[in-house]
């Protein structure tokens, strides 16, 4: 098993460019949560030319809607949700500085093209490993849209959050390459 790479947020172009499809990473720093409903609102703000509730420059959005935190816990279970539902939104956020996304499953060609153009990266976390992933989350602060409940935007502090580089900024795509490697005719 190759060495896992430790990376810190916010991401720089140099960090993004150093990441290659298949790299296992441990992410430390702050990341933001958003799912479908929050993305819709963020893109509506961009459309209107208004300020977003957080500055996306260099940041990572984690596609997640955690379970409620039990008393004394920072967060509940918090695994990734399916990413393709954000295909229409993510390119818009990359245009305003977003550098990374964490989710599960492949993202669309429109996202991949924008990632190459603006140097961004997409990480896969293990869907359904929500109790395990939660252990790497050490801080959890509401940023916006409390009315969305589990879909609100939160700022999470993470330490060694486990993920795999699934789509890199050079056009690498583990969903295509990995499947081709193990497909048996």
């Amino acid at each position, binding site marked *: *098993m190759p060495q896992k790479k430790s990376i810190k947020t916010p991401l720089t172009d140099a960090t993004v460019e150093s990441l290659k499809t*298949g790299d*296992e990473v441990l992410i430390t720093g702050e990341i933001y949560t958003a799912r479908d*409903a929050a993305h819709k609102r963020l893109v509506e703000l961009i459309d209107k030319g208004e300020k977003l509730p957080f500055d996306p420059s260099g940041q990572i959005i984690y596609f*997640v*809607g*955690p*379970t*409620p*935190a*039990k008393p004394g816990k920072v967060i*509940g*279970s*918090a*695994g990734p*949700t*399916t990413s*393709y539902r954000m295909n229409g939104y993510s390119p818009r956020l990359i245009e305003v500085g977003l550098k990374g996304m964490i989710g*599960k*499953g*492949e993202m669309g060609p429109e996202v991949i093209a924008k990632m190459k153009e603006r140097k961004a990266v997409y990480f*896969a976390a*293990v*869907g*359904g*490993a*929500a*109790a*395990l*992933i*939660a*252990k790497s989350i050490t801080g959890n602060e509401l940023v916006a849209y409390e009315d*969305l*409940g*589990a879909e609100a935007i939160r700022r999470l502090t993470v330490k060694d959050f*486990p993920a*795999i580089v*699934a789509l890199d900024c050079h056009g690498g795509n*583990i*969903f295509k*390459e*990995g*499947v*081709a*490697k*193990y*497909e*048996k*005719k």
Partner: protein
Amino acid sequence: MHQISTDRIIDAVRKLSMEAAYDLGEDVIKAIEDFKKAEESPVGKGILDQVLENAKIAREERAPMCQDTGFAVLFVELGQQVEIIGGDFYGALNEGVRRGYKEGYLRKSIVSDPLERKNTGDNTPAVIHTEIVPGDKLKITIAPKGGGSENMSEVKMLKPSDGLQGVKDFVIDRVRRSGGNPCPPIIVGIGLGGTFEKCALLAKKALLREVGNRHPDKFYADLEVELLEKINKLGIGPQGLGGTTTALDVHIEVFPCHIASLPVAVNIQCHAARHQSIVL
């Protein structure tokens, strides 16, 4: 008549909701362990390790194994000699879900209207399938269903002339197009026959069967094994990142159908294959 109070029903469903979210079945755990031994991708093996470690944490810490604690799907077998006392039966089932999701710190994932999309705040209503059966018992099964795998499911009304090959092609194509979206390794529930809606329900019921158990009819048992092997040759692997473990099992349920029809439904279940039952 066997009298069962709605209070008992509420309490049973409350407990089942939480147990389903925290306790992954031994059948699923064993299947993941077995497939992990043969997994050719090191990344895939690592993912299966994480899934097993996650199941252990969930069980020990009474934490939901997945943040998507699902739509509460209830299968009810109501004995015809049972009398429900103390209130409304479906109301009690929903109250059990409401309490279980609140007390268990489970996620509330239901919106009241598909287009307006306002969260109901308590994960109700449940989807309830009721069968009246002989006897004086009440069996309740909860099978919380996550959105990611449900979204990869599909019903197709094939022509009778499409035959067995048409069924196989549709199933394999549905899994291939799903890729990593439904959180592989998956369990594939297949409904074959019936009407449009019966077929979909058969596919869902197929997911309740324990992993590793075969259809009693040898023809369908063999077909399950054949489809499982074909699916695992697709290369999708754990989380779609490539590998030899795409599905843990394939289960088929069959029903007679119309001379003009060959309905087939594929209901995809993620590896968090949750279901818990109780008999009252």
